Structure formats: C-alpha cells, structure tokens
C-alpha cells in the first residue's frame, strides 16, 4: 500500500531532480530559476490534489486528507503567484503579453487560464462557508474548474521547452491526467449508486 506513496514521490521528485540538473540553469538568474521551479512544483501539487480528495492515498483519514487538500490548494495558488511574479520580474513584456493573451508562445494562454481557474477555486473555497455553499453547489463549481486546471496545466507544461526533462515531464503529466480521471470516475460511480438507491426507495 505504501507503493502509491512511493510512486507519488517518484512522479514528483524525479522531474524536479532532473530539472535541477538541467544545463539551462547555468544561463538563468536566481529569480527566473525560482519562477521555473515554482511552476514545476505547482504541477506536482496538481497531481496530489485529486489523490487526496479521492481518498486514494493510504494512511490518511478522510478528514485529514480533506484538510491537506485545502492546504495544498492554498500552496498551489502561492506557487502560481511565485511563478508569475518571478517571470514578470525576469521579462516584464513577455509576462504582460502572456497575461493579456497576446503572447506568441502557444502555451501561454493555457497557463493563464489555469492560473485564473486556480485563483477562482482558492477564493471560492475561502468564501465557501460565508457564501453558504452546499456540497452539491460547491462541486458544481469546483469540478469544472478543477478539470480546466488539470487540462490547461498539462498542455501548458508539455508545450514548454525549458529546464524539465521531457520523459519525466510527460510521465508527470500522464499521472496528473490519470489521477484526475480516476477520481472523477469514482465520484460519478458513487453518484450513480446513490441515485439508484434513492430510486429504489
């Protein structure tokens, strides 16, 4: 059972380690390096999120997994802020192009859409109690945004030519997609079972 923890550590740790060994780092300033790694870490956190909330990770109670999901959601938003701020500092015109959807790089709009979706979820999660959102309403909002975050993050990352080694990057992206599909499928199945039970009563 700790196999899944080991696999998770490898899926996130190996791409970070290989990026840390990239020769590209020699030509980059510290802020640009930090911004790049914040992006890689953010993608790793996107992998952790569905695993936590889907109850896939052994040894964590549902309560603790949900708490961790909230904390990691905040960490993800923070990582994205560091990523964007660091890139802005490195080359303001390129970052402004990206944020205004007028960048020549095809991966930029995907990153920006994922960023806004992450911020939207973070803000809504913080206000959920105050807004009195019930679980059904919350899921109705959060699930589509989560799918946008996952899909856009993966496309954004795959199209970038940077410090990440391509195979470990592809494996991490595949893991993010697989984890999301599994958790969404589980959720769907539970809903089907519940509605059948309700129908029978």
């Amino acid at each position, binding site marked *: 059972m700790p196999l899944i923890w080991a696999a998770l550590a490898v899926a996130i740790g190996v791409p970070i380690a290989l990026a840390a060994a990239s020769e590209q780092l020699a030509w980059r300033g510290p802020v640009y390096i930090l911004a790049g790694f914040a992006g890689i870490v953010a993608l790793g956190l996107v992998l952790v999120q569905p695993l936590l909330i889907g109850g896939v990770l052994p040894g964590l109670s549902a309560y603790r997994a949900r708490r961790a999901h909230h904390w990691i959601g905040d960490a993800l938003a923070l990582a994205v802020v560091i990523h964007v701020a660091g890139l802005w500092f490195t*080359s303001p*015109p390129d970052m402004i192009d990206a944020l205004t959807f007028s960048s*020549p*790089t095809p*991966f*930029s709009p995907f990153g920006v859409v994922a960023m806004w979706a992450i911020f939207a979820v973070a803000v809504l999660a913080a206000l959920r109690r105050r807004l009195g959102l019930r679980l059904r309403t919350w899921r109705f909002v959060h699930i589509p945004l989560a799918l946008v975050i996952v899909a856009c993050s993966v496309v954004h990352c795959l*199209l*970038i030519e940077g410090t990440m080694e391509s195979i470990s990057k592809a494996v991490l992206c595949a893991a993010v997609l697989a984890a999301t599909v599994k958790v969404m499928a589980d959720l769907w199945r539970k809903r089907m079972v519940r509605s059948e039970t309700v129908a029978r009563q």
Partner: protein
Amino acid sequence: MTIVVLSRRSLLAAGGSVLATGVLAAGASGLLLPASADGLAPTETMTGGANNYRKGAPVVDRIGKGGFWMSGTVRRAGDGAPLAGQRIQIWAHTVEGQEHEPQSHGATLTGKDGAFRLEMPQIIPIFGQPHGHLAYDSGEFKTVFLRPIMRSAKDTSLEAHFVLQPA
C-alpha cells in the same frame, strides 16, 4: 571600318540578350513569388518581436564571444530589390546574457546584396521557446520587429528576412 561595325553589332546583340534575360528572369521570379499582383508584400511585425528592445544598439563586428550566426536579407516591398546599408538590430537571451541586458544587443549593416550576417553567442530557450529578436528601426522604412524561433535549441544559426515598405 567593317571591324567597328561588327563590334557595334555584336555589342548591340549582347546588350539585347542581357536585357532580354534580365526581363525574363525578373518575370520568372515575379511568378514564383507570392502576391505577385501587388509585388512583394511587406513583412509584418511579429507578436512579441519588440520585447526587451533597446533603442540604438551599436553596430558591432560580433556580439560577445560569438559561436552562433544570425543571418537574413532586407528587401524592398513591391519589386523585392535588395536594400544595401540597412541597419538591423539583433538581440536574444544567450549564454552570455539575458535579453534586456546591453551586452546581448548589437547591430549590423546589410551588404550590396541586401544580406546581413552577425555572429553572436549561442541562443538558449527563454520563456519556453529558443528564439531571437531582430529590428529594422532606422526610420527610412516602416519599423519591423521579428521574433524567429529555432527548430531546435541545439541549432547554431537562425534566419530572419525583412521586406520593408516606405515609412
């Protein structure tokens, strides 16, 4: 006397044939070029082409220690005539500096054939794509900024071509 007449005739014939081939060549190349009805279309500025531009980089023999070649041509819109003596500014994120840093910028002039070629340090991927920046900004023609992308980050040369229209 006859010799003179003959040479004059041969001269005329030679001149005529040169003229004919010249016209034919121009016609043929005109047919091969796109948008031949309006002549050669001017190059549009590329998105993000002007990013990290610094005005007035000096004309240099080489940017930094070199090792990478940026080359291209400058032609006039319409007839496609090569434009000599045009200043082209070049900059990129290289192994010797970031895009915005002064040492990453330099300029060169086109030769009689409208071609330019400047040695610069190896370009490396920045903001997710290995790319260079070029500018024509001397005022006689409309300013154009280009941002060509390298097929591979391992390439050691890159080309960009300008077709300029009067300002």
